[in-house]
């Protein structure tokens, strides 16, 4: 199972667009577990800082930050997902 953490917060103007693309990409993929991390919660910001995150939206795959900021490309995300599958 590939664990994707999606970091966002309610004031981030780019996050809904990032979430929309992310949802579209992983739709139907059965080996993905998506975890929403709200960085406006104590738990969320702690998790983000533990991964040295400095911006949202961001996507971590299996505990490693792969994409930060918006926009990001669907191809890049898919490549990271495939890379995680191969490991």
């Amino acid at each position, binding site marked *: 199972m590939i664990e994707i953490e999606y970091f966002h*917060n*309610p*004031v*981030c*103007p*780019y*996050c*809904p*667009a990032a979430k*929309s693309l992310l949802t579209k990409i992983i739709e139907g993929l059965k080996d993905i577990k998506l975890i929403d991390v709200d*960085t*406006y919660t104590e738990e969320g*910001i702690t998790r*983000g*800082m533990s991964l*040295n*995150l*400095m*911006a*949202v939206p*961001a996507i971590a795959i299996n505990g490693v930050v792969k994409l*930060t*900021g918006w*926009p990001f490309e669907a191809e890049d995300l898919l490549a990271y997902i495939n890379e995680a599958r191969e490991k």
Partner: protein
Amino acid sequence: MERVWDVIIIGAGPAGLTAGIYTARHGHSTLLLHNDKIGGRALEAHMIENYPGFPQGLPGTELMKLFHLQTMRFGVEFKHETVIGLSDAGDYKIVSTRSGYHQGKTVVIATGIQRKQLNVPGEMEFKGRGVSYCAICDGPFFKDKIVAVIGSGHEAVIDALLLTDTVSKVYAIPGKKGFSENYAELPLLHSNPKVEVLEGYDIVEIAGSEFVTKIKLTGGKVEMINVDGVFILLEHVSTSNILVEAGVDADESGCVIVDKGQHTNLPGIYAAGDCSCIGWQVVTAAGDGAKAALSAMKYLKRMGTT
């Protein structure tokens, strides 16, 4: 003969989409060129609560999806192409893109604005690794850290103050010319013990290794400051260099100059929305788009081309 569109719209934000709804609904062949996501800057709005007709509010993405659907309903043709030139050939205008060119009897410019970048070494390299363009979004990541806020506008002042709730120190760096206006919050900024205002300096470099560690300044005694983050909050600029080259009048900030009917100085060329730096709201952009479309349709009728 190559196709000549009645209307070519450049930009797919609220202004461009509304212009398309109006012209296509009236049966005018309409081409909409866009090099960004359909919806423009409105997509960035987490919640739009002041667009009439939606009393509960809705996310910018949802509102723009509705704009897009309505535009499609009337048959606007969309092409994802980056515009690189515009010229007035008299009876028709030529809009050049990276993929070729298109001819139109009228053109509606709805190119919006983009956030100005610093364009200093390190800015792109450290984007998301200390460089941020959104203090309210990313401020919490800099708890008890030292940050610099670059910008001379109101947003920079407000966000520098906001960041003091989280960070240990804020260097406010408005640039050599100082703050753009005598904002009401400036005394608060100057008196805040966590803030050091560095006036008379310009930032020339952002440096670090994995993350930002320092910035280089010019213009005063301080040359290097250790920081963990750099918030770049420069004022917006129009994206209309191409238009200026085409002879479309713009002011010093690059904002396209229009009259009440959204006419530019060139016949048959109109501008609407944020690129004219008026309104800055989805509802005003939509209104501008409608006015530009009405003016374009009057022009087409006058020219006897419909």
